[in-house]
């Protein structure tokens, strides 16, 4: 019941809101209310899933095997909740500074609905449908702001991601061909008996599709021009979730086979993202290149695999999404506490205790030690040092430079919003047990075969 509401509520609200003029404050407030309600439902769902185990609903009361399965396991609900929280923060931010385009509230709510559906589905093709819905909303959202560069960025973003989506679709066709099924559970069971050549080809197709979303090293070129809070904090989660769900959940053998390649690609992403982030002066672009590096860590963790590696991957994605939301929203503000909140985010990206990023980095170190690789530990240290450098370059640029020190302060609600995000990152670092527990439950859900 809760599961169906979580998918339907933002979807219906979004369809209604798209028809209204979003520049009116009341419509924006309605959008915030709809996304907020989705967060609440997902929160309840997470509590229920953690208490009672995986929830399943077959849509339309069809017999199992015919109807599309919706399923909430710890991994799915965690990612859903995380992404919708980031969407909520970004929507509140826009509402406070004033929404300038009429479609924005509706699109944001639809994006929240699509993300929820995407994480909660147990069907490969249904995943594609929600995936396209989420991407279509984000294509339109990339143009938000209406400046020339945003328009070009949106064009590049759309073209590249459409290509990624169609590669995904071709891989879905391949899955149907070799397994004769689209339900994730059945696909996983049948995948073991499939010709290894076909399986590795299909797995590579999925890997390319999700790497494009995530902006991993060889697929990253669209990313720096198009990044903003919603994209990096919420939409990029699709890539991580897809790699976890499809890689560790459906193609575990192929993942093991390609582990070294994944770790190498992840390592290159970490170094490349870090070095370019140091070299850029622009806050948004620095954060975008930083996102490439952070995605690299997640890939390394997935490559290491096993309970420790997957826990690290989930935990790192959660922390990274919160960091990015905080930094993107906080970077442009001025006034009391804002610099402090930004510094919390910066320290968190670099992995300095007691911020949440420290817990993420700690799990990463644990994963590299389990993998028994000195090179990985060195990589982590170098990556962290690079992130410390680029974060404080931006800090200097934003908060210390003379001509940037405006006398005006940003509106109090905005500063409060960033303050709350900052406190969240700090609290997650000071009291990491719940986060760790959820991450390890999510990793277990993948490993035990209760996928979907």
């Amino acid at each position, binding site marked *: 019941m809760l599961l169906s509401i979580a998918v339907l509520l933002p979807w219906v609200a979004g369809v209604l809101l798209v028809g209204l003029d979003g520049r009116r404050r009341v419509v924006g407030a309605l959008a915030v209310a709809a996304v907020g309600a989705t967060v609440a439902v997902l929160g309840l769902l997470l509590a229920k899933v953690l208490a009672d185990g995986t929830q399943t609903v077959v849509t339309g009361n069809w017999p199992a095997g015919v109807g599309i399965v919706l399923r909430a396991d710890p991994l799915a609900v965690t990612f859903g909740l995380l992404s919708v929280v980031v969407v909520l923060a970004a929507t509140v931010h826009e509402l406070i500074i004033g929404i300038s385009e009429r479609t924005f509230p509706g699109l944001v709510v639809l994006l929240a609905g699509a993300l929820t559906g995407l994480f909660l589905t147990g069907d490969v*093709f249904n995943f*594609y*449908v929600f995936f*396209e819905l989420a*991407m*279509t909303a984000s*294509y*339109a959202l990339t*143009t938000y702001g209406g400046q*020339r*560069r945003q*328009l*070009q960025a*949106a*064009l590049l973003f*759309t*073209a590249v991601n*459409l*290509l990624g*989506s*169609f590669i995904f*679709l*071709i891989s*879905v*066709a*391949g899955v*149907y*061909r070799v397994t004769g099924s*689209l339900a994730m559970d059945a696909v996983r069971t049948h995948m073991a008996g499939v010709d290894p050549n076909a399986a590795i080809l299909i797995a590579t197709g999925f890997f390319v599709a999700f790497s494009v979303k995530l902006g991993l090293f060889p697929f990253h070129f669209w990313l720096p*021009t198009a990044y903003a809070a919603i994209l990096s904090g919420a939409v990029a989660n699709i890539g991580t979730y897809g790699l976890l769900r499809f890689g560790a959940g459906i193609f575990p053998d192929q993942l093991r086979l390609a582990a070294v390649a994944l770790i190498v690609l992840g390592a290159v992403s970490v170094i490349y993202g870090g070095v370019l982030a140091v070299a*850029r*002066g*622009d806050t948004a*672009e620095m954060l975008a290149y930083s996102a490439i590096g952070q995605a690299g860590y997640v890939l390394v963790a997935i490559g290491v695999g096993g309970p420790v590696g997957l826990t690290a991957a989930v935990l790192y994605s959660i922390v990274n999404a919160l960091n990015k939301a905080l930094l993107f929203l906080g970077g442009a503000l001025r006034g009391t506490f804002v610099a402090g909140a930004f510094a919390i985010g910066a320290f968190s990206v670099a992995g300095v205790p007691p911020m949440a990023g420290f817990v993420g980095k700690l799990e990463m170190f644990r994963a590299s030690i389990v993998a028994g690789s000195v090179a990985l530990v060195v990589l982590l240290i170098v990556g962290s040092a690079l992130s410390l450098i680029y974060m404080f*370059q931006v800090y*200097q*640029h934003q908060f*210390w*430079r*003379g*001509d940037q020190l405006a006398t005006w302060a940003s509106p109090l609600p905005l500063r409060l919003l960033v303050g709350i995000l900052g406190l969240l990152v700090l609290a997650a670092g000071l009291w990491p047990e719940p986060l760790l527990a959820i991450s390890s439950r999510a990793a277990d859900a993948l490993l035990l075969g209760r996928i979907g």
Partner: protein
Amino acid sequence: MILALALTAAFLFGSGAYLLLKRDLIRVVAGVMLISQSALVTIIGSSLSRGDAPIAVQPGQTVSDPLPQALALTALVIGLATVALLLALVHRVIVVLHTAERDELAAGEAAHEAALEEQRQADLDEAR
């Protein structure tokens, strides 16, 4: 999958990829369209069984798998919507920037790079 369908899908994908690399934005859109068609052909081909009727089956005959046809229809609609959105974006770019050539768009990017360089210099001066 039948060889003819596989070849068609490969040809569509190849032509699409070639067009994607063109400078003209309209051709890029055409490239994306061709690749979406390639995905559709792959879906249809993934389950095609020779000799089975898709609709109006005679009693006693086997029916062709209906699922991929449903998938292809769904994917067709999604593809139409996304390509329409992409075309709208290209139209907006042409209206705002008066060009459909990627080179000229890249010139705007270069100007942005130069502005960034000035920013970095300012940061350095401040640090000294």
